């Protein structure tokens, strides 16, 4: 699966543009999600410029929505940091999974492309690498698409949010979930992967019920990784 010592990490302007275009259809949905955030943030009492700044600089929807729950005349700093960290801790794992390819880039580029890493472009990028195709263009180009549409969507929500009163009623909260599931279903499937996924799912559910909020992703992913250690692949690599 890992062909890390090849030139799959290489990318140029054309590949970034291709990655951008590949993520635009999904980014259109992200725009709506961004609009929903913009509206929710206005309703939570944030200034317009702060809302736009948050989407531009943070670029992590789930944690931004969670922050709105904490927002008031005063915001507890420690709680804010823990909440944002816990929800975004999955980025740590994303960076780690891409490392076999990222490490072949000079450090400057390596960290620059990670600036726009988020769920969808990470998943696409990793899938490309695992299929023996270059993936950094997808990560960077796709990330730029998601980021710019997220910011534009937020702005639209701040300006004309009234158009989407209840994003849930339109199913918009399901955009990322459905996309990520499509990636899972479209990925490699065999007995070993299914076993690993079962471990991950069970651990995640247990953490969801019994551990502090927002820890389930990290717990489930680490459990799945552990399962992969115990069940070695029969045929090594392709």
């Amino acid at each position, binding site marked *: 699966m890992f062909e890390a010592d090849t030139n799959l990490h290489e990318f140029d302007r054309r590949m970034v543009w291709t990655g951008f275009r590949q993520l635009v259809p*999904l980014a259109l*949905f992200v725009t709506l999600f961004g609009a929903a955030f913009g509206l929710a943030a206005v309703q939570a009492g944030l200034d317009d410029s*702060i809302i736009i*700044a*948050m989407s531009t600089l*943070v670029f992590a929807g789930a*944690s*931004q929505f969670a*922050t709105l729950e904490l927002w*008031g*005349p*005063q*915001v*507890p*700093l420690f709680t804010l940091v823990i909440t944002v960290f816990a929800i*975004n801790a*999955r*980025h*740590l*794992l994303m*960076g*780690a999974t891409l*490392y*076999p390819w990222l*490490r072949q880039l000079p450090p400057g580029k390596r960290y620059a492309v*990670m*600036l726009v890493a988020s769920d969808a472009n990470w998943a696409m990028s990793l899938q490309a690498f695992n299929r023996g195709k270059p993936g950094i263009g997808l990560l960077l180009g796709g990330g730029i698409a998601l980021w710019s549409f997220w910011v534009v969507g937020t702005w639209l929500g701040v300006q004309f949010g009234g158009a989407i009163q209840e994003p*849930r*009623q*339109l*199913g918009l909260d*399901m*955009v990322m*979930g*459905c*996309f*990520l*599931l*499509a*990636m*899972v*279903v*479209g990925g490699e499937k065999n007995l070993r*992967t299914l076993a690993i996924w079962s471990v*991950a*799912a069970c651990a*995640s*559910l247990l953490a969801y019920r019994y551990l502090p909020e927002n820890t*389930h*992703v*990290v717990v*489930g*992913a*680490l*459990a*799945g*990784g*552990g399962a*992969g250690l115990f069940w*070695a692949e029969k045929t090594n690599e392709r």
Partner: protein
Amino acid sequence: MSVETTGLGALILVLVMAGVTLATRWGGVYVMSFVPLGARVRRFISAMSGSVLVALLAPLALEGDLGARLALLATAAVMLMVKKPLPAIAVGILVAALVRQLGNGAV
């Protein structure tokens, strides 16, 4: 310690959020640069990569509302049939919207 959300306070909060999030985007890559990439480590992160998605989805699939669960089911079904993500996502969102609209009508 709390931060006032008036004036500069709100901007400071946003910068703190941005800093924490950036640390998560960079941290995994940074830590891995100290870990020798042996066969075991590769196996671990390879197994972890799919598990991130599954761990993210599991509570949504089992503890979500009917709309969320049927949306995921529809997405999986369409994805298995046509093997293209976009139609699968579109159907999933449509199902979530329909179920929730109907649910509201019924109540």
